[in-house]
């Protein structure tokens, strides 16, 4: 406040009624007294009276003064508080934006964090509830697919898609003009300029309609399965069109992006006059917001999967066991064929449990099918190809010998170093055929059958020996066959029949010689005649009994060749007889009958 007070001691003006000379003298006096300080006083007066200068002066000391006072007491704070409160209130009433802008950096992150945490927890519990109610998820999706006409794969994709940012608009806040626009691949978008403007109009409309606070704006819109999230800065807004359920992190991302854009483009945004070219470089920032997240694939594996795995493993195990068993059984079959006499295997292999063999087989060996039948090895699992051969195995040589020689049970065969020995006895016919039968018998170099007894020779010798002991006795002096000897005649006939049969078998010739005898009583000539008659009598009887007459020779020796010396009646009786003898034998039988 400028002082115009006239009573100031420094006032240039004196009393209104003062005379000029007085004033001048006073001035002179004043100059004399305070002349040196006058300029300083004048300067001080200016500094105190001129508000600008005074303010300048105070501004020099204010920081120090405040600092000084603050250290002394809290009166300065108390004095300033109402004023500052009033100032803030006034500022907010007039335009809250500067205050909002000022505190937003400090408040924003903590508020965002708190809200994000709350929402995250809420979504988590919601998701869990949803997951639990999704036990028939697959079925539901199928029903949904059928109901909506969408393909099942699309429904699954949509359900697996957590979210996808399809479009991002950077919009000038005041004019609603589109500063930049990006969209994800395969996304069909409407004119970004018009959408930006309309979005702004709708936000304005909502804002006006609900008469909300200045900073309350429409920042979330739900359209079907799409959401529009709007993040506002002071000069521009970022709008993201999202399909699915976006996470709060995305909100943070949008917030960070719009903040970053404001940081870099503050000047360009506030002076925006319609030219969008300077905002081309924001493209990477906007593209960075085009995020996509698919639902994590569930790690939980369906019980059905385990059942299938178990079934497959069981199946494979069973199959393997089955294959091993098949292989083993085929191997056992092969082993038994390998150890089977008379079978020589040249090639063998087992494929898929089927046995393939080829080799030589002795005709006398057991039929392979019979061998395998004993093992319960199915015939359809073997493929055989055999060439016939003669085995030199001693057992087989023996077998072959038995097979071809067909020895009677009374003959024992032994094989030693290629020599086949025969022991025991056998019919003459078999013995005679033996060399022929044994000819070409593989594995037999020589036959040794000298120890073999000829049954038919033996029988002949036996009959012949028996014949010698037989006789027909006659009454004294008579040539007629007494009735008592008829039985003996029968016996003799049967012995002769045996002898002739054996001779036929042995292919030999022989005759029966009947010798008539008499005792020593009487004359020798009569005795000779009588003995001949007796022999002829017997011959006649034998012929009657079927003995061929040409095989019979008769003679009478009288008493010249007695059967025994006549020292008793019994002996004389034996000399009145006819005796029998086999004569005229050919070849081998002469000397004992061995072949």
């Amino acid at each position, binding site marked *: 406040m400028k002082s115009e007070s006239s009573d100031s001691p420094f006032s240039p003006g004196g009393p209104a009624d003062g005379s000029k000379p007085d004033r001048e003298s006073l001035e002179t006096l004043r100059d004399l007294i305070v002349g040196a300080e006058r300029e300083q006083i004048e300067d001080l007066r200016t500094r105190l009276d001129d508000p600008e200068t005074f303010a300048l002066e105070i501004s020099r000391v204010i920081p120090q003064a405040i600092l000084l006072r603050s250290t002394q007491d809290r009166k300065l704070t108390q004095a300033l508080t109402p004023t500052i409160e009033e100032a803030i209130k006034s500022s907010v009433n007039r335009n809250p934006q500067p205050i909002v802008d000022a505190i937003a950096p400090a408040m924003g992150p903590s508020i965002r964090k708190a809200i994000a945490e709350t929402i995250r927890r809420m979504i988590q519990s919601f998701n869990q509830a949803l997951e639990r109610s999704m036990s028939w998820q697959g079925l539901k999706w199928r029903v949904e697919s059928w109901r909506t006409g969408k393909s099942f794969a699309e429904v699954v994709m949509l359900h697996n898609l957590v979210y996808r940012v399809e479009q991002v608009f950077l919009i000038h806040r*005041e*004019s609603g*003009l589109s500063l930049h626009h990006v969209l994800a691949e395969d996304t069909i978008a*409407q004119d970004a300029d018009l959408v930006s403007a309309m979005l702004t*109009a709708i936000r304005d409309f909502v804002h006006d309609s609900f008469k909300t606070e200045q900073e309350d704006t429409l920042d979330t819109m739900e359209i079907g399965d799409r959401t529009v999230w709007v993040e506002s800065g002071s000069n521009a807004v970022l709008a993201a069109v999202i399909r699915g359920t976006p996470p709060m992190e995305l909100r943070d991302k949008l917030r960070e992006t719009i903040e970053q854009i404001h940081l870099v483009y503050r000047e360009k945004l506030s002076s925006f*006059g*319609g*030219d969008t070219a300077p905002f081309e470089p924001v493209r990477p920032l906007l593209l960075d917001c085009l995020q996509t997240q698919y639902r994590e694939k569930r790690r939980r594996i369906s019980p059905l999967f385990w059942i299938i795995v178990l079934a497959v493993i069981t199946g494979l195990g069973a199959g393997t066991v089955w294959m091993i068993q098949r292989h083993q059984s085929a191997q056992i079959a092969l082993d038994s064929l390998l150890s089977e006499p008379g079978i020589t295997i040249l090639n063998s292999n087992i494929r898929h449990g089927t046995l393939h063999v080829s080799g030589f087989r002795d005709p006398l060996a057991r039929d392979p099918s019979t061998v395998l039948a004993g093992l319960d090895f199915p015939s359809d699992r073997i493929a055989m190809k055999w060439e016939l051969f003669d085995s030199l195995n001693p057992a087989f040589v023996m077998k072959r010998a038995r097979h071809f020689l067909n020895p009677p049970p009374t003959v024992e065969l032994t094989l030693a170093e290629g020599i086949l020995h025969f022991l025991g006895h056998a019919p003459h016919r078999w013995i005679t055929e033996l060399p022929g039968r044994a000819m070409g018998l593989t594995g037999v170099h020589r036959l040794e059958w000298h120890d073999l007894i000829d049954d038919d020779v033996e029988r002949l010798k036996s009959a012949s020996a028996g014949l010698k002991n037989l006789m027909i006795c006659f009454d004294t002096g008579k040539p007629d066959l007494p009735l008592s000897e008829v039985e003996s005649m029968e016996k003799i006939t049967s012995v002769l029949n045996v002898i002739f049969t054996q001779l036929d078998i042995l292919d030999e010739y022989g005759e029966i010689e009947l010798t008539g005898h008499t005792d020593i009583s009487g004359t020798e000539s009569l005795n000779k005649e009588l003995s001949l008659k007796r022999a002829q009598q017997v011959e006649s009887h034998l012929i009657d009994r079927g003995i061929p007459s040409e095989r019979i020779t008769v003679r009478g020796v009288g008493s010249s060749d007695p059967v025994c010396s006549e020292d008793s009646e019994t002996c004389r009786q034996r000399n009145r007889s006819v005796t029998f003898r086999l004569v005229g034998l050919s070849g081998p039988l002469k000397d004992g009958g061995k072949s």
Partner: protein
Amino acid sequence: MIQKKICMLGAFAVGKTSLVERFVKSIFSDKYLTTVGVKIDKKTVELDGESVNLILWDIQGDDELQTFRTSYLKGASGFILVADQTRAGTLDTAERLCRTAVGTSRQTPFLLAVNKSDLTIDPDFDPVRLTRLESDGWHIVHTSAKTGWGVDEAFSWLARKLTGK
């Protein structure tokens, strides 16, 4: 690309919507006019080989039936006031809207489209008043949405004014 927000203002049924309908790219239905109170269209104007996108905010008329939302005027680079020469009263509305939207400083370019020029003029529609407005700095274009007459001229004039070309 230069983009400019233009607000179309005028009384009810002066033909704002019709004025732009045939000359703009539109993706929104007219129903927005009655619901949100604004319909947004785009008109691209070629100026000396350069395209200027005029984003046209067709704002619902101001009368007793509708609430005029001034928030829609924010950030507008220019205004098109529309009057209907068959209804004299629409000029009053245009003047009032001009005061509201453009203000007295007249820093934002604007023009007055006197529409329905193909129809008979309202006897009460005073041409002298137009002359007075013109002398007051108003740019006035006579248009006919029906014939298309004057429409391109109006948009081109405003676009040039906005871009300083």
